[in-house]
Protein backbone atom coordinates (compact mmCIF):
# COMPACT_ATOMS: atom_id res chain seq x y z
CA UNK A 1 0.00 0.00 0.00
CA UNK A 2 1.47 3.35 -0.96
CA UNK A 3 1.30 6.53 1.10
CA UNK A 4 -1.48 7.97 -1.11
CA UNK A 5 -3.81 5.19 0.07
CA UNK A 6 -3.31 6.28 3.70
CA UNK A 7 -3.58 9.99 2.87
CA UNK A 8 -6.84 9.67 0.96
CA UNK A 9 -8.10 7.00 3.34
CA UNK A 10 -7.73 9.36 6.32
CA UNK A 11 -9.40 12.30 4.55
CA UNK A 12 -12.19 10.19 3.06
CA UNK A 13 -13.08 8.49 6.35
CA UNK A 14 -13.03 11.80 8.26
CA UNK A 15 -15.24 13.66 5.81
CA UNK A 16 -17.62 10.73 5.32
CA UNK A 17 -18.15 10.47 9.09
CA UNK A 18 -18.71 14.24 9.44
CA UNK A 19 -21.12 14.28 6.47
CA UNK A 20 -22.97 11.24 7.86
CA UNK A 21 -23.25 12.87 11.28
CA UNK A 22 -24.65 16.10 9.77
CA UNK A 23 -27.09 14.17 7.57
CA UNK A 24 -28.27 12.06 10.53
CA UNK A 25 -28.91 15.21 12.60
CA UNK A 26 -30.64 16.98 9.73
CA UNK A 27 -33.04 14.04 9.47
CA UNK A 28 -33.56 14.10 13.23
CA UNK A 29 -34.41 17.81 13.07
CA UNK A 30 -36.88 17.24 10.22
CA UNK A 31 -38.60 14.47 12.23
CA UNK A 32 -38.89 16.65 15.35
CA UNK A 33 -40.24 19.58 13.33
CA UNK A 34 -42.81 17.33 11.64
CA UNK A 35 -43.96 15.98 15.00
CA UNK A 36 -44.27 19.49 16.47
CA UNK A 37 -46.30 20.57 13.41
CA UNK A 38 -48.57 17.52 13.85
CA UNK A 39 -49.18 18.41 17.49
CA UNK A 40 -49.91 22.04 16.61
CA UNK A 41 -52.37 20.89 13.95
CA UNK A 42 -54.05 18.54 16.43
CA UNK A 43 -54.41 21.33 18.99
CA UNK A 44 -55.76 23.72 16.35
CA UNK A 45 -58.43 21.18 15.35
CA UNK A 46 -59.36 20.61 18.98
CA UNK A 47 -59.88 24.33 19.56
CA UNK A 48 -62.06 24.75 16.48
Amino acid at each position, binding site marked *: *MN*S*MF*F*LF*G*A*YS*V*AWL*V*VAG*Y*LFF*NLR*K*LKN*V*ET*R*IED*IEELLRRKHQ
Partner: protein
Amino acid sequence: MKKDRITKILLVLVLLMLPVNFYLIFQVAPTERIMGDVQRIFYLHVSLAISAYIGFGVLFVSSIMFLIKKNLYWDTLAYSAGEVGLMFSTLVLITGSFWARPVWNVWWTWDPRLVTMLILWFIYIGYFMLRKSISERLKKARYSAIIGILGFLDVPVVRLATKWWRSIHPRLSKEGGGLDPLMIKVMLFSLLTFVVFTIVIIIFRFRVAWAEERLYSILNEMEEYHE
Protein backbone atom coordinates in the same frame (compact mmCIF):
# COMPACT_ATOMS: atom_id res chain seq x y z
CA MET B 1 -32.66 36.74 15.44
CA LYS B 2 -29.20 38.16 16.02
CA LYS B 3 -27.99 34.65 16.94
CA ASP B 4 -29.45 33.32 13.66
CA ARG B 5 -27.51 35.91 11.70
CA ILE B 6 -24.26 35.07 13.45
CA THR B 7 -24.81 31.35 12.75
CA LYS B 8 -25.50 32.07 9.07
CA ILE B 9 -22.38 34.23 8.81
CA LEU B 10 -20.31 31.46 10.43
CA LEU B 11 -21.82 28.87 8.07
CA VAL B 12 -21.00 30.97 4.99
CA LEU B 13 -17.53 31.57 6.39
CA VAL B 14 -16.89 27.87 6.91
CA LEU B 15 -18.20 27.01 3.43
CA LEU B 16 -15.70 29.47 1.99
CA MET B 17 -12.86 28.38 4.24
CA LEU B 18 -13.13 24.61 3.68
CA PRO B 19 -12.23 24.58 -0.05
CA VAL B 20 -9.44 27.10 0.59
CA ASN B 21 -8.19 24.82 3.35
CA PHE B 22 -8.16 21.83 0.98
CA TYR B 23 -6.32 23.87 -1.63
CA LEU B 24 -3.69 24.98 0.89
CA ILE B 25 -3.15 21.45 2.24
CA PHE B 26 -2.88 19.68 -1.13
CA GLN B 27 -1.44 22.39 -3.37
CA VAL B 28 0.41 24.98 -1.31
CA ALA B 29 1.90 23.13 1.68
CA PRO B 30 5.33 21.71 0.81
CA THR B 31 5.85 17.94 0.80
CA GLU B 32 7.68 16.74 3.88
CA ARG B 33 11.16 15.41 3.10
CA ILE B 34 11.06 12.10 5.02
CA MET B 35 7.39 11.14 5.29
CA GLY B 36 6.32 12.46 1.91
CA ASP B 37 2.69 13.16 1.03
CA VAL B 38 1.26 11.13 3.89
CA GLN B 39 2.43 13.88 6.26
CA ARG B 40 -0.49 15.97 4.93
CA ILE B 41 -2.70 13.94 7.30
CA PHE B 42 -1.10 16.10 10.00
CA TYR B 43 -3.21 19.18 9.03
CA LEU B 44 -6.42 17.20 9.42
CA HIS B 45 -5.34 15.16 12.45
CA VAL B 46 -4.26 18.16 14.58
CA SER B 47 -7.30 20.22 13.55
CA LEU B 48 -9.61 17.35 14.51
CA ALA B 49 -7.90 17.10 17.90
CA ILE B 50 -8.43 20.82 18.56
CA SER B 51 -12.07 20.45 17.48
CA ALA B 52 -12.50 17.56 19.93
CA TYR B 53 -11.02 19.67 22.76
CA ILE B 54 -13.40 22.53 21.90
CA GLY B 55 -16.35 20.13 22.11
CA PHE B 56 -15.21 18.73 25.45
CA GLY B 57 -14.39 22.25 26.68
CA VAL B 58 -17.93 23.44 25.95
CA LEU B 59 -19.25 20.30 27.67
CA PHE B 60 -17.07 21.11 30.71
CA VAL B 61 -18.21 24.76 30.99
CA SER B 62 -21.86 23.89 30.33
CA SER B 63 -21.76 21.15 32.96
CA ILE B 64 -20.50 23.66 35.54
CA MET B 65 -23.21 26.10 34.45
CA PHE B 66 -25.84 23.38 34.82
CA LEU B 67 -24.76 22.58 38.37
CA ILE B 68 -24.93 26.30 39.25
CA LYS B 69 -28.12 27.28 37.39
CA LYS B 70 -29.97 23.91 37.36
CA ASN B 71 -31.30 24.82 33.94
CA LEU B 72 -31.68 22.04 31.35
CA TYR B 73 -30.57 24.47 28.64
CA TRP B 74 -27.00 24.01 29.88
CA ASP B 75 -27.30 20.25 30.04
CA THR B 76 -28.59 20.20 26.46
CA LEU B 77 -25.66 22.33 25.34
CA ALA B 78 -23.28 20.09 27.32
CA TYR B 79 -24.31 16.82 25.67
CA SER B 80 -24.60 18.43 22.22
CA ALA B 81 -21.02 19.71 22.42
CA GLY B 82 -19.89 16.42 24.01
CA GLU B 83 -21.32 14.44 21.11
CA VAL B 84 -19.48 16.66 18.61
CA GLY B 85 -16.30 16.29 20.69
CA LEU B 86 -16.72 12.51 20.74
CA MET B 87 -17.16 12.38 16.97
CA PHE B 88 -14.02 14.45 16.42
CA SER B 89 -11.98 12.45 18.95
CA THR B 90 -13.03 9.22 17.18
CA LEU B 91 -11.71 10.75 13.96
CA VAL B 92 -8.49 11.78 15.71
CA LEU B 93 -7.88 8.12 16.60
CA ILE B 94 -8.79 6.91 13.09
CA THR B 95 -6.70 9.51 11.20
CA GLY B 96 -3.86 8.91 13.66
CA SER B 97 -3.89 5.22 12.71
CA PHE B 98 -3.85 6.10 9.01
CA TRP B 99 -0.79 8.24 9.66
CA ALA B 100 0.94 5.78 11.99
CA ARG B 101 0.74 2.78 9.64
CA PRO B 102 3.07 4.10 6.88
CA VAL B 103 5.30 6.08 9.29
CA TRP B 104 5.63 3.79 12.34
CA ASN B 105 4.68 0.62 10.48
CA VAL B 106 1.86 -0.12 12.94
CA TRP B 107 -1.79 0.93 13.11
CA TRP B 108 -1.58 1.36 16.88
CA THR B 109 1.13 1.60 19.51
CA TRP B 110 0.87 2.02 23.28
CA ASP B 111 2.38 5.51 23.25
CA PRO B 112 1.41 7.86 26.13
CA ARG B 113 -0.29 10.35 23.79
CA LEU B 114 -2.32 7.64 22.09
CA VAL B 115 -3.24 5.91 25.34
CA THR B 116 -4.35 9.13 27.08
CA MET B 117 -6.41 10.03 24.01
CA LEU B 118 -8.01 6.58 24.04
CA ILE B 119 -8.78 6.99 27.76
CA LEU B 120 -10.39 10.37 26.98
CA TRP B 121 -12.49 8.68 24.30
CA PHE B 122 -13.62 5.98 26.74
CA ILE B 123 -14.49 8.61 29.38
CA TYR B 124 -16.89 10.31 26.99
CA ILE B 125 -18.28 6.98 25.78
CA GLY B 126 -18.98 6.39 29.49
CA TYR B 127 -20.61 9.82 29.71
CA PHE B 128 -23.12 8.88 27.00
CA MET B 129 -23.65 5.38 28.39
CA LEU B 130 -24.50 6.95 31.75
CA ARG B 131 -26.96 9.30 30.08
CA LYS B 132 -28.66 6.33 28.38
CA SER B 133 -28.95 4.42 31.64
CA ILE B 134 -30.79 7.12 33.64
CA SER B 135 -34.35 7.99 32.69
CA GLU B 136 -35.12 10.74 35.22
CA ARG B 137 -34.23 13.95 33.39
CA LEU B 138 -32.73 16.07 36.19
CA LYS B 139 -30.85 13.16 37.73
CA LYS B 140 -29.40 12.33 34.31
CA ALA B 141 -28.26 15.93 33.86
CA ARG B 142 -26.74 16.13 37.35
CA TYR B 143 -24.76 12.87 37.17
CA SER B 144 -23.53 13.47 33.64
CA ALA B 145 -22.45 17.01 34.56
CA ILE B 146 -20.19 15.51 37.23
CA ILE B 147 -18.69 13.04 34.72
CA GLY B 148 -18.36 15.86 32.19
CA ILE B 149 -16.37 17.97 34.64
CA LEU B 150 -14.16 15.12 35.88
CA GLY B 151 -13.61 13.77 32.36
CA PHE B 152 -12.24 17.07 31.15
CA LEU B 153 -9.32 16.68 33.57
CA ASP B 154 -7.86 14.19 31.07
CA VAL B 155 -7.63 16.84 28.31
CA PRO B 156 -4.53 18.61 29.72
CA VAL B 157 -3.03 15.16 30.41
CA VAL B 158 -3.44 14.28 26.71
CA ARG B 159 -1.83 17.58 25.69
CA LEU B 160 1.10 17.20 28.10
CA ALA B 161 1.59 13.43 27.66
CA THR B 162 4.42 13.91 25.16
CA LYS B 163 6.15 16.24 27.62
CA TRP B 164 5.66 14.14 30.76
CA TRP B 165 6.49 10.71 29.35
CA ARG B 166 8.80 9.35 26.69
CA SER B 167 6.81 9.43 23.48
CA ILE B 168 7.37 8.85 19.78
CA HIS B 169 4.38 11.04 18.95
CA PRO B 170 5.42 14.29 17.20
CA ARG B 171 5.24 17.31 19.50
CA LEU B 172 4.18 20.76 18.41
CA SER B 173 5.93 23.61 20.17
CA LYS B 174 5.41 27.36 19.99
CA GLU B 175 8.41 27.56 17.67
CA GLY B 176 6.71 25.12 15.29
CA GLY B 177 8.67 21.98 16.19
CA GLY B 178 11.02 22.20 13.20
CA LEU B 179 8.21 22.67 10.69
CA ASP B 180 8.63 24.66 7.51
CA PRO B 181 7.19 28.22 7.98
CA LEU B 182 4.73 27.59 5.13
CA MET B 183 3.56 24.39 6.81
CA ILE B 184 2.91 26.35 9.99
CA LYS B 185 0.83 28.93 8.09
CA VAL B 186 -1.22 26.18 6.41
CA MET B 187 -1.63 24.49 9.79
CA LEU B 188 -2.88 27.71 11.40
CA PHE B 189 -5.40 28.25 8.62
CA SER B 190 -6.59 24.67 8.98
CA LEU B 191 -6.97 25.15 12.73
CA LEU B 192 -8.97 28.34 12.23
CA THR B 193 -11.22 26.61 9.67
CA PHE B 194 -11.91 23.74 12.05
CA VAL B 195 -12.55 26.05 15.00
CA VAL B 196 -15.28 27.85 13.01
CA PHE B 197 -16.55 24.52 11.66
CA THR B 198 -16.77 23.04 15.15
CA ILE B 199 -18.68 26.06 16.47
CA VAL B 200 -21.17 25.74 13.59
CA ILE B 201 -21.67 22.00 14.20
CA ILE B 202 -22.13 22.52 17.96
CA ILE B 203 -24.75 25.24 17.33
CA PHE B 204 -26.53 22.98 14.82
CA ARG B 205 -26.44 19.94 17.14
CA PHE B 206 -27.69 22.08 20.02
CA ARG B 207 -30.66 23.26 17.93
CA VAL B 208 -31.61 19.67 17.13
CA ALA B 209 -31.26 18.67 20.79
CA TRP B 210 -33.20 21.71 22.03
CA ALA B 211 -36.03 21.03 19.55
CA GLU B 212 -36.15 17.44 20.86
CA GLU B 213 -36.26 18.70 24.46
CA ARG B 214 -39.17 20.99 23.59
CA LEU B 215 -41.02 18.18 21.85
CA TYR B 216 -40.63 15.86 24.85
CA SER B 217 -41.81 18.52 27.25
CA ILE B 218 -44.90 19.18 25.06
CA LEU B 219 -45.63 15.43 24.92
CA ASN B 220 -45.21 15.15 28.70
CA GLU B 221 -47.55 18.06 29.29
CA MET B 222 -50.13 16.49 26.98
CA GLU B 223 -49.85 13.18 28.79
CA GLU B 224 -50.31 14.86 32.18
CA TYR B 225 -53.29 16.82 30.83
CA HIS B 226 -54.99 13.64 29.62
CA GLU B 227 -54.41 11.93 32.96
